């Protein structure tokens, strides 16, 4: 079974009378147990797609299914199976790392809450930070916190929105190792990133999104071939396809 199936997803926003097409007939599937990359320039529609996947945003048309259930109409069955890692949202002020993890643990059906908190702290190397106010964590530890929070609920699908953005080299390496280890635990991962090398290292398959449209989808080697030149890198394909898409938009 597919972990995720997006079919003909369309979403537009109105901004001061101007219509912005954030998603345009987006269709893709993510297989169970794979790390799936979603790459695209800023404003391409990555976060919009992730928000639709989480049920935080209603599509104008089309559908999103997670493990065979519709995200909007069967939300209560779908949401407990997934979680989100994003550095674009903040941390609730006034609670320690441990308290905040406990707070989020109450929101999921977890059998042994304290054990789950301890495991999450251990896996993400946050044990020594447990009494620190969460919002005072440095960016590297914040990312670890987001992952700890996400792992609490033992999700089958993890959405990771630029998990290594702004991190120093060493912390980024550790986060990537953590993402790799998720796959061995059978967790399906949807990863967005601006780092091509990271996508190449981690992802089984990648979709390129530009201006709300999926412009390519395949394995790293398949995408490299689309660049149309020998020894092409993923970056070459990315630039070729996203630039082409933007030029077509401008022509229209």
């Amino acid at each position, binding site marked *: 079974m597919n972990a995720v199936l997006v079919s003909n997803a369309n979403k537009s926003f109105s901004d001061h009378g101007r219509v912005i097409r954030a998603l345009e007939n987006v269709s893709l599937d993510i297989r169970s147990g794979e790390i799936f990359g979603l790459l695209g320039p800023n404003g391409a529609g990555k976060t*919009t797609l992730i928000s639709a996947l989480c049920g935080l*945003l*209603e599509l104008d048309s089309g559908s999103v299914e997670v493990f065979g259930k519709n995200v909007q109409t069967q939300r*209560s069955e779908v949401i407990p199976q997934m979680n989100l890692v994003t550095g674009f949202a903040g941390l609730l002020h006034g609670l320690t790392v441990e308290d905040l993890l406990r*707070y989020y643990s109450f*929101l999921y059906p977890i059998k042994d809450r304290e054990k789950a908190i301890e495991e999450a702290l251990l896996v993400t190397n946050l044990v020594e930070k447990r009494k620190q106010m969460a919002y005072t964590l440095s960016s590297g530890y914040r990312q670890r916190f987001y992952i700890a929070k996400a792992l609490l609920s033992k999700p089958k699908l993890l959405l990771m929105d630029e998990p290594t953005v702004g991190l120093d080299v060493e912390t980024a390496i550790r986060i990537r190792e953590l993402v790799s280890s998720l796959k061995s635990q059978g967790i399906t991962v949807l990863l967005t990133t601006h780092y091509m090398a990271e996508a190449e290292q981690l992802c089984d398959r990648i979709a390129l999104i530009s201006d709300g449209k999926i412009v390519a989808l395949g394995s790293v080697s398949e995408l490299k071939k689309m660049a149309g030149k020998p020894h092409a890198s993923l970056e070459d394909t990315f630039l070729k396809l996203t630039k082409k898409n933007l030029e077509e938009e401008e022509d229209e």
Partner: protein
Amino acid sequence: MNSGLLRAYSQLYKGGKLLFKNPFRWFDVTVWPLILLFSLTLFVSFVGNDPRLVTLVVLGVMGWRAVYHAQFEVANNYQEEFWSNSLTHLFITPIRPIEMVAGAAVSGFLKFVIVFLMYYVLTFFLYGFVVPDIGIFLIAALALFVFGLSLGMITLGLLFLFQSEAFPLSFSMADVFVLISGAYYPVSVLPGPVQAVALLLPSTHAFNLLKSTVGMGSVDWVALLVLSVVWFGIGYAVTMWGFHQAKKTGKLVRVA
């Protein structure tokens, strides 16, 4: 514990942790309620020290706080997440708006109890105040609290829709509605059109219930019950409508 109850409890847990970790948050159940109380009781003492008037004012102020704590806690529970920019983390979880309201309602109720006890002890020793009829008082306080929840849900629905632009509502809605409900004065002193509006509020009839215990005001039980149910229904509908609209427009999370 049932999953829904646990999710509601999470909001109580958050509120409790925030309250106990920051002494300034206690102002909401100590300093501000005392300012409201003494600004009125001192004035009543100054103009005549009539024990019946003191009772009327103290009952009115207690009722006021019942509406306020219910309404404000529901709205502020959301605002805490907004100010921390953590709404995405909250709404990715299975929590439902009604569970947020339920958790905040318990938190607001506990704060009201703290304020009520503080008021009672202080006014008993300073003015010899006693609640004339505890049964009637409890019914009126419950009705006012439920109306506060209805206002809280209306505020929450508008916060979903308008986000920070609607924040002033959180801090003013309860007070505006209490003011036109005749907390410790008859609604007949209000301008005509405002009186008509006042009669459509369950709070007006609940305050009349409180006033009746000191021989002032008549009680319309049917209006109190029917209007309480209607306003609660409106509150729930506005919350759910605001939530769904926010998911459509992308305002629930900042994606646009």
